[in-house]
């Protein structure tokens, strides 16, 4: 199985540290969520992973080979992002043909079906597409190239609600038909929360979390009840946030609970990735106490 490895990557633009000592490992056939707020460094990281820009330190490897100047490895990753790197004057069919020429093969069947489903005219010129259809076309390309790692940088940003639905469905379908790795980078967490199998949280250039979703969610505990009881119960535990609704208090704990007795007045359940993300990436007291 192939492995995509990011190793101690750091990057600054001028005086701004955008990425600081980022190390990640991506396995084959999983759906990763790369979550972060706007400006967290996600796009920069993806650009470095596809050799579009250079890191200041660190390296990116696929199967232990550096990707720089390495067609064989670079041909295993594809990045779809908002930047337009295709010639505006070319028709979509022409771009498809050129893409196929370079990748050696292309899933025309899927591309045609998707174009029809999304109502995209492949004879149009790339430069004349609306924002939404520009994204759709690039997404179609991303799903039809024979690569092992598909990187999607804010894939649904320009898409209307219907198209978003369709996109996620098609993503799952192609993932099932042709298992490969997807790395979805987004700040729209609720949409992808159930879709991803592994979650990575990037905040201000650092990795805050890098775990399988199942393990992460098992460690989320929302403790609800009267303030006193809740605070007593969570004393000494890793409380990363709280909510108040009148006299009812919710403490959000991330980590393992010990075997202390749960009072009758207090209820436990899990909370979702979206909430966890907000706490991890907020300048909230206690939010820096994360567990990895």
């Amino acid at each position, binding site marked *: 199985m192939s492995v995509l490895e990011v190793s101690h990557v750091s990057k600054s633009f001028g005086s701004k540290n955008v990425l600081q000592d980022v190390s990640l490992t991506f396995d084959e056939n999983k759906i990763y969520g790369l979550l972060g707020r706007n400006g967290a460094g996600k796009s920069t990281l993806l650009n470095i992973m596809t050799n579009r820009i250079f890191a200041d330190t660190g390296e990116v490897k696929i199967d232990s080979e550096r990707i720089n100047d390495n067609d064989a490895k670079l041909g295993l990753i594809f990045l779809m992002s908002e930047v337009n790197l295709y010639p505006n004057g070319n028709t979509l069919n022409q771009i498809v043909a050129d893409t196929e020429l370079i990748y050696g093969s292309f899933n025309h069947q899927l591309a045609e079906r998707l174009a029809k489903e999304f109502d995209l005219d492949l004879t149009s010129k790339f430069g004349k597409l609306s924002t939404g259809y520009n994204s759709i076309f690039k997404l179609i390309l991303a799903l039809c190239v024979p690569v092992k790692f598909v990187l999607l940088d804010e894939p649904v940003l320009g898409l209307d609600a219907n198209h978003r639905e369709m996109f996620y*469905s098609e993503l*799952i379908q192609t*993932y099932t038909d042709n298992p490969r790795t997807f790395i979805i980078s987004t700040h729209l967490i609720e949409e992808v929360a159930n879709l991803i199998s592994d979650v990575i949280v990037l905040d201000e250039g650092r990795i805050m979390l890098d775990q399988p979703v199942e393990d992460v969610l098992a460690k989320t505990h929302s403790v609800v009840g009267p303030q006193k009881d809740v605070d007593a119960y969570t004393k000494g535990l890793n409380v990363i946030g709280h909510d108040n609704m009148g006299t009812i208090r919710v403490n959000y704990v991330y980590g393992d609970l010990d075997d202390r007795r749960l009072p009758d007045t207090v209820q436990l359940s*899990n909370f979702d990735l979206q909430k966890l993300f907000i706490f991890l990436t907020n300048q909230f007291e206690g939010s820096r106490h994360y567990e990895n």
Partner: protein
Amino acid sequence: MQFQFNSSEPIYRQVAEQIEDAIAAGGFEEGQQIPSTTEISKEFHINPATVLKGMNIVVAKNLIEKRRGLGMFVTNGAHQRIVSEKKNLFFENFVVSLVKEARSLDISESELLELIKRGYDK
């Protein structure tokens, strides 16, 4: 399909429970095909591996079975099995919290029994 997913427990468990509930309520009849992993994952944007994990729990309980090349089907006797399992868990799942709630509201045992009787009369 009327599935609802929330954040209170792992998705795979919710998938399993919702399939079981549907079988118990008669929504899926014995011998009937249930939606595939792919269909469920596409419909609700859930990772297929998660859906599969949930399905496997239900398979392990012998409530559904995989028929090669066809899909997942409700087994014979599944309805009976799930209803009896739910019966066994009824005490844990409902009675304990009912009593806890009643206690917190200062409802006595006899008052609670009265209320239960009233519920059956409806």
